[in-house]
């Protein structure tokens, strides 16, 4: 599977994302400069973490106007796999490829810590390797991860099974105390209606090696690579 990892000015998680895809999963992976509109040959576009264009105005608000986002939009509308991580989630919301909006964390502080998230649905190509209700241990690092959707939209997202990940405690209970940023309905990861666009605030690429504190991020990489039914490898 060929991955393209987009680099905006201010992106800062592209190297570790490429490392996981290329060195741990041995997938052909290239960096895509934001000024390009060329996605030829790419099977999955990854929008990695960082502060694209400094996150000035609002996180992702300027990045959505980068030329590559026009190509990403066409790619997504045609059913291509698009995966946003952290800042990538914010950009996909601003670009309208995912519904809803991101606000500053409750408490207004940047939060960097490990959290638990519960896998709500496994029909998605991004969670297919997981068990429904499985709890993943992943790190977060963001200041604007407080997801919001108005009640009607939230109801629609719930009904269509677009909420793939929710913050929970270690036992899998979705509680206010387990919510690190104030997201509505503890939303941590969200898919598009078509299911081919997916984004999450946690960083699975920082949780792919035991040396770095955990390997639960691999369940998502295993999913997208079609390793359905396999136990995450260490």
């Amino acid at each position: 599977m060929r991955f393209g990892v987009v680099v905006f000015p201010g992106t800062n998680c592209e190297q570790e994302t490429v490392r996981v895809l290329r060195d741990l999963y041995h997938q052909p992976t290239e960096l895509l400069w934001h000024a390009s509109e060329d996605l030829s040959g790419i099977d999955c576009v990854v929008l990695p973490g960082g502060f694209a264009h400094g996150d000035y105005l609002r996180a992702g608000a300027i990045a959505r106007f980068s030329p590559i986002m026009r190509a990403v939009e066409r790619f997504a509308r045609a059913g291509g796999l698009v995966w946003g991580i952290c800042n990538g989630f914010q950009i996909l919301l601003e670009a309208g490829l995912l519904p809803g909006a991101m606000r500053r964390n409750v408490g207004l502080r940047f939060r960097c810590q490990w959290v638990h998230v519960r896998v709500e649905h496994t029909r998605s190509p991004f969670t297919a390797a997981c068990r429904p209700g499985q709890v993943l241990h992943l790190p977060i690092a963001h200041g604007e991860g407080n997801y919001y959707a108005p009640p009607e939209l939230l109801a629609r997202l719930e009904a269509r099974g677009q909420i793939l990940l929710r913050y929970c405690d270690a036992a899998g209970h979705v509680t206010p105390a387990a919510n690190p940023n104030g997201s509505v309905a503890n939303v941590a990861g969200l898919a598009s209606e078509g299911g081919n666009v997916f984004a999450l605030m946690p960083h699975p690429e920082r949780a792919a090696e035991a040396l770095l504190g955990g390997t639960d991020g691999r369940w998502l990489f295993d999913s997208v690579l079609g390793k359905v039914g396999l136990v995450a490898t260490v």
Partner: protein
Amino acid sequence: MSLRSEPRALAALLAEVGLTEAEYARLCAALGRAPNHVELGMVGALWSEHCSYKSSRVYLRRLPTRGPRVLQGPGENAGAVDFGDGLAVVFKVESHNHPSAVEPFQGAATGVGGILRDVFTMGARPVALLDSLHFGPPGEPRNRYLLEGVVAGIAHYGNCMGVPTVAGEVHFAPGYRANPLVNAMCVGLAPRERLVRARASGVGNPVLLVGAATGRDGIHGATFASAELDARSEERRPAVQVGNPFLEKLLLEACLELLATGEVVAMQDLGAAGLTSASAEIASRGGCGITLDVSQVSRREAGMTPYEVMLSESQERMLVVVPAGAEARAEAVFARWGLHTDRVGVVTDDGLLRVCDGATVVAELPVRLLTEAAPVYERPCAPPPPPPPLDLAAVPALAPAAALVALLTSPNLASRAPIYTQYDHTVQGNTVIPPGRADAAVLRVVGSAKGLAVTIDSAARYAVLDPRRGAALAVAEAARNLSCVGAQPLAITDCLNLANPERPEVTWALAETVEGLREACVALEIPVISGNVSLYNESEGSAIPPTAVVGMVGELPEVARATDAGFKAAGDVVLLLGSPRVTLAGSEYLRVAAPERPELLRAGEPPPLDLAYEARLQALVRALVQGGQVRAAHDCGEGGLAVAVAECAMLGGLGFVAAPTWRAALGVEEDGVRLALALFGEGPSRVVVECTPEAVGAVQAAAAAAGVAAVELGRVGGTRLVWPEAIDLDLAELTARWSAALDEP
């Protein structure tokens, strides 16, 4: 107007640029004429304490700076040591105290920005940030405001740059009320052969100015940083710069990309004293001259004078010398990252820093006059009266359990999680031991089996009593912290924060501090490769304690063997390795047991430090960690033994039960202050370790062979923290209180 003929105008000018009349006379004599206004401003900035180290230079020469692994010692933007595997570790610490006292958010943010530039200017990619922060008591609103502003500023800059902030220290004491300290350290990695020095060369080579446009911010920042703060310091807010981490991220990527092309002669970031300092330093190190044309400098606003352009401290700027003919290629690299390049000058062979404004020469000074020929002072030096002895009979004896809770919820010992969770410490995907888990942070290095360990420490509590031993204790603690994760120290960067050196006891403290650093560095065989001095941390009669901040970097032979401080398994044995010599002088116990008697903290001698013993202990701990015989190791530092054991238990989520014989093992049969001394007394050369019951014999044998005492304290297990007949606390409850204490008003 002739400056000489107008004494009052001259006095005002000298005050503005921070020069004394004697320094002015020295300048005129060296030049053979009176300087003009631009020249006076340039000299004032470079002869400031901040830039010239004029009061500290005679002492700093005494520090050991050589070693088999040293690639670059002091004198460059940052020091470098050989990491092996073809890599160099580049690091430095720097203060941003004065700006942070006036505008905490931007002061701290630009401090981080400055130290990052120092490291990537050397061709290294920054891989870690650390901070040493000192404030007045956090219960006071102004100190709380400073703390929150500084932490938010560090987070703002470091997070946006994508450089993990992995370690640090935060210390509260009344002496920092008026003068908080903000010291930031950056560690980078570079391919050994790609290390660059900031030495201009090649007559006719173009000098480029890259990055932000130049504005009126930060003019006289270096001079501001070289004077005491006073009631009018708030008015100096314009002397504080405003940071733009996004721009710096672009500058970082563009500079590293340009360096990879090999078409760079020299690179120098613009920090204190801006263009003046950068061009003088790069020319001075290269033994050449530079001619600049300020009319070519992009500006943020119209009407800026050559004086303002030369002294602006606008952030996120870099001076780059490239080979003649390579300008366009360099400009293309910067343009790709959206950065503007000005061709501002050219390298000459006349040894002069010449500043033109178009066709007009507005300043012309010998480079040497600005740098090496700056004044050097050996200021009057006299010790203050020695502290009175600490009368143990005057120390209240708290019930041990109450004392432990009070200590763990006190500002200096409460969990730092509310601070470090605001810093992205996992970005770059290399953090093996994150902040809060151990005495040092550990990073893996992609492409190497080895690990990189980093720590930053100070011991101002002891330096108040004895600056020499305080500095030595700081070095010993930093090295012990690295040893506890299994790392061998490689080198030190230091930041010496002191008060006004024009007072003889401050200069004495400076000399003693350097001597303490020297003694410890020599004994532990750790060279000093970079550093910074911040003086005049004093205002209106309130001076900071001498605060030597030691940043240290070490290597682990195998990163996978790194060990943190948390207990690992019920049934394991807990031992104390090291010296039984402890004291309550300067201790955290005194602070919580007798808050109404601050004078107790200024009494007594710091704990004794036997450097030969310390070296043996550290080697022992490293060997045990690397050999896998111990599963947790933790420095027994502030708060003493009971606090160290409690921290291991809280970090591991596992209880601890001391052996029934613990009192005999510690040699304390009575209650009262002697018991407090045993449980909460502080001293160097002590480490708490955890091992399996099967490994106890091997650990004890290794300790005996090393000539280090080893005492069995008890066992890991249960949900409580128990020292029979002294302490019995619920661990979960204690952990919750410890975790939340710093955030509580």
